[in-house]
Structure formats: C-alpha cells, structure tokens
C-alpha cells in the first residue's frame, strides 16, 4: 500500500474534516467507525488491543489498550530476594530472556558493588547476543508474515530452533533460562564442544542464512512496496517518544547502549552500530527498521565470535558471592541494550535482601506509544506494517 496517492489523499487531516463530513456521494451517509484490532488478532504480536477510529480504510485515531498480561512484577520484586527475582525477568521479553537477565543482574551488581569474573562476562555477552539473534529472527519472520510472506517464517524459525538448542545445552531451559545470577552465571560452558558448535552456527548464519533471507524477503519487490515510505518515524519524534533500540536506529539516530553507555565487556569487541538510511524510501520507514534488525544479526554474529574466541579461563562466578545477596542502601539506574531497545532497572535498596523498589523501564512500552502519533492518517493495512515493524513483546509492556 505504498501508493503515494492513497496516503496523501487521507482526507480531513488538515481540515479536521473527513469523508464522513463531505458530500461525496449524495444521499449516502458515512461516519467514523470504531474498530477493535485485537486482543485476539494475528497481527498484534500478543494480547494487545488497538482501539481504532476509522473512516473507510483510513485510521483517524489509535488508542492502545494494555494490561492483559499484567502481573505487577514490580510488586513481586519487593517480596522476593534479589536472586529469586531473576526468574521473573525471563518473563518480560520472553523472546530474548538472556538480555533481560543481563539487564537485571547488571543493575544488582552495580548496587552491590560486586565484580564479575571476565569469563562470566564473555559467556553473558555470547548468550545475550544469541538471544538477540533469536529475537530478531522472530521479528523478521513475523513482520514478513504480516506483510503476507509465509515462507520466510519457516526459514527463520528453523535457525531459531538451532539457537534454542544451543541455549538449552548451556542453561538447561529452552525458552526461559534463569541463567544469570548477580556475580556470574549459573553454569559454566558445557564441555561437549559447545563453543565450537556456536562458532559453526554463527558462521552458517552470517554466510549462508542471511543472504538467503535477503533473497527471500529483504529485497523482494512486493515486500519493499509494502514497507518503504510506510510508517515513517522521524528522528525527533523517535527521541521525543522515548523510542530506543532498532526503532531509534531505524530513524537514523546513532545511539546504542552497548557502545555509548558501555556495560559488561562490549568495549573489547569490534563491531558497528547499524542505522537506517532511507535506502528504499524515507529514513525511519518500516523497511529501515527491518533492515537494521537484519544487519544487527550480522553484527551479533561478529560479537559472539570474538567473545567466544577470546573466552578466558577462570571462574564463572564470583568466589566471594554469599548465599543470600544483600545490597547496601542506595539507588541506581542501569540500562542495557536488550533486543527491543533500552531495558532499564531503577532499584532502590534499603540494605536488606529484597529490593525496596524495583522499577522496570521496558523498551516495548515506550516504543509502542509512538503509534498514537504515527498511526494516524495511515491505511489500516499500513498500521499492521507499523506495529509489526516496532517489534513489541507484550510480556514486557504489561509486566
């Protein structure tokens, strides 16, 4: 639907009047229609409900209705100790739980002043990036599916399965890992050739699979027509609405926590931040957000290769770690680049073994708000493209 005429002619956006106010067809009355997109809708990626006001195919107002998955995890955090809450972070972004684990343990370690062995940090980076690839694969696959491309879904899930197998071998869980703890990781790298298998997979991904996706989907003429120039988020809007991650970088803002607010051992590796450049249309359109994710897979492969090739010997947990973790009184905000964007934790400690307050700033929550602005004036089918390109996950929106 990247047809220029349909969007420019979206009636009433300037004058405040739409089709329903005009006498296009004498004798036929038209009015705004209220339409529910979701909560059970294949194109909303979870139990999200969008309340639309439409005039024909044009969207006049988008109101996201949230909370179908709300568990008040922040309240639970005040009742369980620091180690026990790691398992709840898995359930935030259940497509990339390692990144959520990483964000939370980083925050607790900052509060505790706990140092982490180098080997643990390398393992963390490797599994986080594997998780990021898995999440981005789902993003590419379901985005293609929203645009009517069935086949890439099967290809992407095939590679994701490999990642789940690798992560199962190191953590014991297929999808929810509970793998990191403050001060290290729960288990060392298994001695069944895991590192070599990951390196093989990364090579395969980078040299064989990504070119395959590009042929199938990225440079497909139909796909480009559906996504280029659609749902354009300019850089100013993206920052103002608190967008982060691939959504922000797709709009051409050169920012990535891994490089600009470094944590863990990312500073040791050689990789590049990927930006949307408007190659197929306007900077910040749906295709740009797609291509940023596709290229980030390649960069994640580079990071994993370096992290595992330089994997140092030594302990995988801090030796001084006590059975019950206690943090001195204080407050700290830390943020980590998860697969969806900037995942922040604001933890206030009163000196005990549970957090006094644990506020989670989830990237999907902030990224979704932008549909209230950018979704207006689009065709309904372009709204599907916009929501698909934001790559939200409802587990961390509703928390």
């Amino acid at each position, binding site marked *: 639907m990247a047809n220029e005429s349909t969007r420019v002619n979206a009636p009433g956006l300037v004058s405040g009047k739409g089709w329903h106010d005009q006498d296009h067809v004498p004798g036929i009355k038209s009015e705004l229609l209220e339409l529910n997109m979701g909560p059970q809708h294949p194109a909303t990626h979870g139990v999200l409900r969008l309340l639309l006001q439409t005039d024909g195919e044009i969207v006049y107002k988008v109101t996201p209705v949230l909370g179908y998955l709300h568990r*008040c995890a922040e309240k639970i955090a005040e009742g369980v100790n620091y180690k026990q809450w790691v398992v709840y972070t898995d359930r935030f972004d259940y497509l990339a739980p390692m990144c959520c684990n990483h964000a939370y343990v980083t925050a607790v370690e900052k509060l505790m002043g706990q140092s982490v062995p180098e080997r643990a940090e390398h393992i963390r980076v490797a599994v986080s990036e594997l998780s990021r690839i898995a999440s981005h694969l789902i993003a590419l696959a379901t985005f293609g599916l929203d645009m009517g491309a069935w086949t890439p879904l099967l290809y992407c899930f095939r590679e994701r399965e490999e990642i789940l197998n690798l992560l199962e071998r190191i953590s014991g869980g297929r999808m929810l890992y509970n793998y990191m703890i403050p001060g290290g990781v729960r288990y060392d790298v298994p001695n069944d050739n895991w590192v070599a298998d990951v390196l093989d997979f990364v090579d395969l991904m980078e040299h064989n699979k990504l070119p395959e996706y590009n042929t199938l989907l990225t440079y497909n003429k139909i796909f480009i027509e559906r996504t280029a120039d659609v749902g354009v988020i300019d850089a100013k809007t993206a920052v103002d609405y608190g967008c982060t991650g691939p959504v922000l970088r797709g709009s051409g803002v050169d920012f990535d926590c891994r490089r600009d607010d470094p944590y863990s051992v990312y500073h040791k590796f050689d990789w590049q931040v990927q930006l949307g450049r408007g190659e197929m249309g306007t900077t910040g359109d749906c295709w740009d957000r797609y291509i940023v994710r596709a290229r980030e897979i390649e960069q994640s492969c580079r990071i994993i290769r370096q992290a595992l090739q330089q994997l140092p010997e030594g302990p995988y*947990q801090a030796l001084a770690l006590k059975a019950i973790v206690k943090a001195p009184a204080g407050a700290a905000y830390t943020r980590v680049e998860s697969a969806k964007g900037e995942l922040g934790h*604001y933890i206030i400690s009163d000196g005990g073994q549970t957090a006094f307050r644990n506020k989670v*700033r989830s990237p999907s929550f902030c990224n979704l708000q932008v549909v209230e602005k950018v979704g207006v004036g689009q065709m309904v089918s372009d709204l599907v493209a916009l929501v698909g390109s934001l790559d939200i996950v409802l587990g961390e929106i509703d928390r």
Partner: protein
Amino acid sequence: MEQNAIYELLAGALGDGALGYNEHALEPWADVAPAKVVEACRFLRDDPRLGFNQLMCLSALDWDGLDEAGKGKSTAILGYTDDGQPETSDRVGTGDLGVAYHLYSHALRHKFTLRLRVPRDVAAVPTVSGVWTTAAWHEREAWDLMGITFTGHADLRRMLLDDAWVGHPLRKDYVMPGTWNGVPLQGQPYCANPFPVETGGPDQPAGDKPAEG
C-alpha cells in the same frame, strides 16, 4: 558535564525551587520542589549546555517505611493466610510518595537524575508530558500503580489495571482484594517458596536457598 556542575546550572535557574543535591550517593541526584518540576525539566532540555532530549525513565516511588538516609525496613507485603484468605491490615502508610526522572542527552552523552517528594495525602505533581511526550504513558502508569495525580495530564486513565480497579498496588500499604468480579484472587504468599530445594547438590550453586520468611 559533571553531575555537580549540572546541578549548579539548574540551581542557578530555579532559585529556591532546587532543594538540594546528594553527591555522595552511588548515583547523585537533585531534589526539586514539585511545583517547579516543569520549569526544571524545560531548562534541562532547552539549555544548550545541558540538552537533555531524552527522558529515559520516570519512576513513581513510595518512601513509606524508609528514613531520610535510605535506611529502614521495607514494609511487609500482605499476602494470604494458610487457608487462602487475604491478610488484612489497618496500617495506614505515612511516608511520602515521590517521582524520579532519569534524563539523558544524546548530543552531550551525559545523564542526570531529578527527584521530588510529595505528601501522601495530596500526591499531585505537574505533568512533564509537555516537555517529553514519552512521559505521558509513564505518568499514566505511575497514576495507575502508585496513585500519583499528574496535574495537567491530557489523558490520565488507568493503564495496566482495569478501569474499575480500586487502589494502587505499588503503595506499601496496599491490601489485595479477596475477590475481583466474583473471581477469588487466592494464591501463595509472595515470600514462601512453593518448591523448597535441597542446597548443595552437584549442579546447584550454593546460593539457591529458599528465601527466609
């Protein structure tokens, strides 16, 4: 820019609206008067030396049970008794509520933290959604879960809970309802581990003891 230099600029612009600066903390923060928060945020965003164009996070806080120095005992969370009934309490929270703003500048690559406190019974803070639009949803969430009213907010409705929900769950003196729309809200107490584990097994790191109480 250094944190204390940022605070000096802010204090110069705000006058008596800047209430203090805590520089010995792990993460320094500035206290501002609630009535002056919009002015402070606008200054922090628009001054070319500061340029805080991103609101990273807006957190609603409940200081009940904690003294000024951050020491104290967190208030016990009410759960359920052994027969599945919700525990009740007559305790009324007395501490202040608060809001924390975490800011970041993309151009200058520095961060800053603003905090404010409001009394519990008149918890109203001017909205900063006119400064950063992202605050609109953060503030709706803060109203929903902590019950802080943001004056001037265009659309202050419940966000994550049902529109008809009573109370604000993140407050320390919140009492869970026994039922909701006829559905009993029963469960395990938050602190009890329903699956107690033996520690010290071959694959079990030493730290996985069940929580105490």
